[in-house]
């Protein structure tokens, strides 16, 4: 079958790879009909996530039709149309029992490697490095989905692929970010990053009752989308000082909640941002925590910092003093996608939200390599890419 594979820094290719089959009795094999490129795929594209190997199949935002099920799969059958969450969860361990699906104990075959690096292993994730499981991803014609009764959600209505596809990651991720932000009436929520996760965080913050959402980015079309679809006040950080503007908007209190929807590859400006880039290039630092620093500086005392943005390793100059003295609560984690699938599908089916608004590119899988580049460079007004195998 054809698949998009990682070959190294800024090098992804279409390759012919073996077609996956059912291995464990709870597996299903899905014929992928639509699959998206995630902002976090760009961290892989930049060669920033450790333990990737040449030839790894990318992709963790897929949907499709079930073509094969293992002997113990009960809820799915051949022909079912499903969206597949990016987290693989067993549904039986202590973490799954506590709705902490992305922390599942039983789905990372390379748990020992993750433990070496992080102390403990989170759940396996499709197409996201060997430390995170090594599972082939969904930017391919077919994919094997372990624990098929726990992950994939069946789509039985006639919603289009673009309307439901983002249940796989970015819609739940933005939503969990807003939920983690602990939003109250009259609250101002500031969202750094107006990529797809930022857009869904903005929408969800609004749904959860925020008085006002402030969106921060530097890409004009992304800021425009935040204004038009999210009713957000926007700040272009290249034009104005983010701290000054946020204090102006909140009477000096600062935003009650801050959401970092950027993560490890933040751009930023000034000497410290340059220093981060150099250190990262020299392998002295894994993450560029520009947004974390700014958000901690801006956040209201006793406020909440919610971090859906992906970080990969260690960051320098992390403002622990301000975080501690301002008594800021930090909420983060890979998304517990299974927790949100049902409720968010309901939101889509009832017409409260149509996630397809983020799609700017919809092309055949073969155009993947070129679209990784377009998405990375934010050219052609690219915000979200959907690929069709």
């Amino acid at each position, binding site marked *: 079958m054809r*698949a998009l594979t990682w070959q190294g820094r800024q090098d992804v290719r279409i390759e012919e790879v073996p077609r996956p089959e059912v291995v464990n009795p*709870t597996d299903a094999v899905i014929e992928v009909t639509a699959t998206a490129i995630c902002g976090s795929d760009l961290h892989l594209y930049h060669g920033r996530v450790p333990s990737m190997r040449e030839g790894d199949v990318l992709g963790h935002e897929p949907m499709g039709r079930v073509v094969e099920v293992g002997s113990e799969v009960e809820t799915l059958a051949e022909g079912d149309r499903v969206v597949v969450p990016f987290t693989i969860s*067993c*549904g039986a361990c202590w973490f799954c029992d506590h709705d902490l699906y992305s922390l599942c104990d039983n789905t990372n075959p390379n748990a020992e490697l993750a433990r070496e690096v992080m102390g403990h292993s989170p759940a396996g994730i499709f197409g996201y490095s060997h430390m995170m499981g090594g599972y082939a991803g969904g930017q391919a014609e077919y994919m094997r989905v372990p624990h098929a009764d726990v992950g994939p959600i069946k789509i039985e209505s006639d919603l289009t692929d673009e309307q439901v596809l983002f249940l796989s990651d970015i819609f739940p991720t933005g939503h969990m970010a807003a939920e983690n932000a602990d939003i109250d009436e009259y609250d101002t929520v500031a969202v750094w990053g107006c990529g797809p996760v930022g857009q869904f965080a903005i929408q969800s913050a609004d749904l959860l009752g925020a008085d006002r959402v402030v969106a921060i980015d530097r890409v004009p079309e992304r800021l425009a989308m935040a204004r038009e679809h999210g009713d957000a006040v926007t700040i272009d950080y290249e034009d104005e000082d983010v701290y000054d503007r946020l204090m102006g908007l909140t009477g000096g209190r600062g935003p009650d909640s801050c959401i970092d929807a950027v993560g490890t590859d933040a751009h930023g400006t000034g000497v410290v941002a340059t220093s981060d880039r150099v*250190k990262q290039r020299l*392998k002295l630092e894994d993450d560029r925590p520009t947004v974390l620093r700014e958000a901690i500086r801006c956040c209201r005392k006793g406020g909440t910092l919610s971090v859906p943005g992906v970080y990969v390793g260690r960051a320098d100059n992390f403002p622990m003093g301000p975080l501690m003295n301002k008594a800021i609560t930090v909420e983060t984690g890979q998304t517990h996608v299974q927790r949100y699938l049902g409720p968010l599908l309901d939101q889509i089916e009832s017409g409260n939200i149509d996630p397809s608004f983020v799609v700017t590119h919809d092309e055949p899988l073969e155009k993947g390599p070129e679209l990784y580049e377009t998405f990375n460079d934010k050219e052609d007004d690219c915000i979200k890419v959907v690929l069709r195998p």
Partner: protein
Amino acid sequence: MATPETAHERRRPEAPREESGRVTGTLGQGVQFVLGTALVEYGRRQQSRRGTAVALGGGALVVRALGGPAWLKRVFTERNGGVTERAATEPAARETAVSRSITIGASPDDLYERWRDPETFAEILGHFAEVTQLDGDRFRWTVHGPYGQDIGWETHVVETEPGHLVRWETPTDAVLPNEGTVRFQPAPGDRGTVVTLSVAFDPPGGTLGSAALEQFDIAPKTVAGVALDRFKSLVESGEVPTLDGNPSGRGAGDAV
């Protein structure tokens, strides 16, 4: 009260750990570093011979701030440089005696029964050895070495306490004498059972063990850790997570 975690830490032998290589710099080093990186960036932007000189000077400051070229050399020799490589460059632990724990969501009695089931026992150790039951409490273990050579031994279960403990050992004249013990202790609240696996190769008195471990690329710490992972996944989720048949540009069936 000792939580399972703290107890686990106490029991766990200290692995030799390489310094993780952070810049723990003093103020002076910090200033040098920031100044150095700023000069590098300034010089790079000039795109001239003078700019190059400034950038090189900045680079030298950075190197100095980091404590000199020896340190830098090590950084550059770490392929891809990410966190994994840092961990992976740590010398493989070859302690001959290790003890590791995991918490599993089942009762001590159930876990004891599962461990005693020969089929389960073989699957738990499947990543490391082919284990076949000879009769009753005797098992044949075969480990495939990295160069195609095999090493094997027989073990005998020598002690059992239902719901608490199983202990096995090889005869003293085995080619690689070893012994193992698994213990089951209730965890607090709804957390199930703390399972502790202790293995020792070449029990006290010889150096044959560590040499054979090198030769057959056996890392007891990893063997025990992965065995516990496999046991837990099998009991809790009904299967061991696997990359068998996993497609990639390298073929089917991945492993790190």
